[in-house]
């Protein structure tokens, strides 16, 4: 924490520090010895922790406890929802090549399972286009569902985008799908805590949430999935979690996760107000210093359109990874988009889907504020930025030749 405090950590969309309340809950629960599936008193004591956590999360999201399926995190929840719901409905309707509808700007944890189902499981994929702000075209979905409801296995559209922060009209989409009788999944990993996530108002079939994005531990998440909906499991085993998600219950993780979700939901409004101030002051400052900066995504300052903690910009003539490296050296932690395992920048599919050209996509940076962010962090970015942009642009002009040749190589292949 101390090291983080010395640095300007503005990458909370990647992960946000664990809340002390969550850590305490984890430690408390870790002292209970039993396996929650065991039938004896110790087992029951542990199970009680899991069930209390389940109820707490259900209350906070305004759904029923039986809908909450604990998982290892966002990626697992997304895979379980996309594959599990697809397989179940395909079998139920006896479809050979069912439609699978997904927005073009999904996180890889949704995008890749969708593509995998297309490649290996006969899914006929419909990618829902987005506009320049990153918002999906709902009428395109309505058109599709009007003709193909019984041939569509699943619709999946994220609640809010992890890169540019665009908030999707999930209430509208959920209602459309419900009316058509088509299951709807939404990845709410980034939305939770920043915008209201009220499942009594958004009748989604399945919702993904993650622990470490709201101040809970890594390695835990949940899929909130309608208990009446059948889901084919991805991993088979002991039959925990309604037979949908086998694996020993992790009581400490569930307890800590529930505390974090509770805090995040309780604080959502004041948190959003805090983030909005930082968001607008950073954008204002960047535009003053680097006037030709392009602000990507939806309207800044409108949390119904854009996550309040998200700032996403392209700095023409500079490469995102140069900017990131130079800011890193100046004590600022941010990101070029979504973190990728290899640490290698690829042009973001989100920006490309929004119609941003590849060049601009490669020159982008994401700042994402969180709980302990302060105006000091904004100042740190703005103090470093002119020098950073200057140097990155010099490096960018060096690499523009190689960019052209790289593009030529791509076009050739």
């Amino acid at each position: 924490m101390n090291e983080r405090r010395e640095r300007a950590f503005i990458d909370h969309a990647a992960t946000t520090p664990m809340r002390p309340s969550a850590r305490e809950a984890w430690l408390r629960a870790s002292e209970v010895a039993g396996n929650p599936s065991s039938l004896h008193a110790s087992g029951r004591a542990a199970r009680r922790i899991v069930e209390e956590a389940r109820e707490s999360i259900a209350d906070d999201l305004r759904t029923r406890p039986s809908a909450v399926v604990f998982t290892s995190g966002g990626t697992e929840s997304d895979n379980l929802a996309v594959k599990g719901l697809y397989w179940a409905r395909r079998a139920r309707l006896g479809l050979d090549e069912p439609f699978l509808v997904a927005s073009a700007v999904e996180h890889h944890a949704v995008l890749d399972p969708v593509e995998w189902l297309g490649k290996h499981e006969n899914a006929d994929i419909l990618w829902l286009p987005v506009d320049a702000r990153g918002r999906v075209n709902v009428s395109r979905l309505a058109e599709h569902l009007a003709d193909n409801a019984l041939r569509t296995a699943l619709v999946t559209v994220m609640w809010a985008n992890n890169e540019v922060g665009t908030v999707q009209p999930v209430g509208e989409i959920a209602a459309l799908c419900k009316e058509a009788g088509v299951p709807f999944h939404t990845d709410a990993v980034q939305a939770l805590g920043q915008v209201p996530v009220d499942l009594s108002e958004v009748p989604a079939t399945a919702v993904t949430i993650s622990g470490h994005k709201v101040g809970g531990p890594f390695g835990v998440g949940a899929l909130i999935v309608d208990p009446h909906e059948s889901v084919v499991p991805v991993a088979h085993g002991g039959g925990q979690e309604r037979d949908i998600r086998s694996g020993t219950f992790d009581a400490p993780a569930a307890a800590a996760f529930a505390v974090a979700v509770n805090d995040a939901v309780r604080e959502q409004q004041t948190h959003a107000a805090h983030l909005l101030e930082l968001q607008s002051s950073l954008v204002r400052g960047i535009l003053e210093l680097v006037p030709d900066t392009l602000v990507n995504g939806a309207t800044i300052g409108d949390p119904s359109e854009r996550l309040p903690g998200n700032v996403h910009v392209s700095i023409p003539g500079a490469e995102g990874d140069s900017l990131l490296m130079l800011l890193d050296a100046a004590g600022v932690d941010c990101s070029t988009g979504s973190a990728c395992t290899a640490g290698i920048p690829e042009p973001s599919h989100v920006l490309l889907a929004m119609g941003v050209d590849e060049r601009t996509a490669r020159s982008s940076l994401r700042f994402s504020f969180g709980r302990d962010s302060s105006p000091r962090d904004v100042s740190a970015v703005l103090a470093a930025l002119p020098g950073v942009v200057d140097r990155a642009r010099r490096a960018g002009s060096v690499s523009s030749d190689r960019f052209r040749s790289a593009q030529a190589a791509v076009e050739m292949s």
Partner: protein
Amino acid sequence: MRVVAALSGGVDSSVAAARMVDAGHDVIGVHLALARSKSEGGKSRGCCTIDDARDARRVADALGIPFYVWDFSAEFAEDVMADFLAEYRANRTPNPCLRCNEHIKFRAVLDRALALDFDAVATGHYARVIEGPDGPELHRAIDPDKDQSYVLAVIEQDLLKHCAFPLGDSVKADVREEADRRGLRTAHKPDSHDICFIPDGDTAGFLTRALGEQPGQIVDVATGQAVGSHRGTFTVTIGQRRGLDLRIPGEDGRPRYVVDVDATTDTVYVGAPELLDVRGMTADQVIWAAPAIDHEWVDVLAQVRAHHQPVPAMARFLDGHLQVELLESIRGLAAGQSVVLYRDTQVLGSGRIVETVAASDDSVTVGTLGRRDDRA
């Protein structure tokens, strides 16, 4: 100095980076993503393996320096791999490590580093940069077994001031011991010898897959008789003896070697080893690591392979081409190889061999005449 330490994930670059840190420089570690792996959906990954990329990261952790992966896979695909295939297709035998040093490590990476206000790129190559009267000079490493000045002879002299080779004054055994003493996890990794994008070492297989089979005959130059067949002229190298699978023994029963290749008829010629003796050559794509020589013949040492004894020679530079007359013949030399000229231990420059002159005959050239204008 602000230094980019290229971390390959091997022991040499680890120790090189450590020495730069010890010397008080402001160092960042950079692992280069070069090869694109098809199996991973075309995403770039480090050269050569996941292990190497991970080791590089962990060495940076141990040294307490920042670590980044720089993606030069597009440049690598074009300037190294495509060039490698084009050269083989033209029946030349390229050395991709030189091309990588020329285009990637000491061009693209260095350009980027300089633009980002770094002063130098440090690598674990065994060579020395010494300040001389006419500016920095590139010299052989003191460890003759490890000397890599040959593959670095593609660095132009004005870039040498931005190159740091902290291992040039060390012998390999000491470098390993130092890595061990420093607790670097790479201390006991084996040396790499293969071409990084052909990790199984099967160059002929790689070429056949990439270029397709172009079978043809193997002809004995002494008899004019077809004595075998091959899968493509690019699968054999001038001077090669093994793996030819010749069906008919030679007249005198002596071993036969690939002595020439005719790409127009897909014919490979085999013959006696004396036919491989070369006494001169012409090279293009000349790069000077020292002030250029001119049309006057000068005494030099010429080296034609990474690990090869240099031989005394005379050289001159005429119309963009390097002419080299060897004072002792060299056996088995293919077009496409690089000739590196030295004065004592100093690297003068390098060129790509396009034409060789056989020792046996003044008029006949052995080896394939390369097209001279295809890289303009």
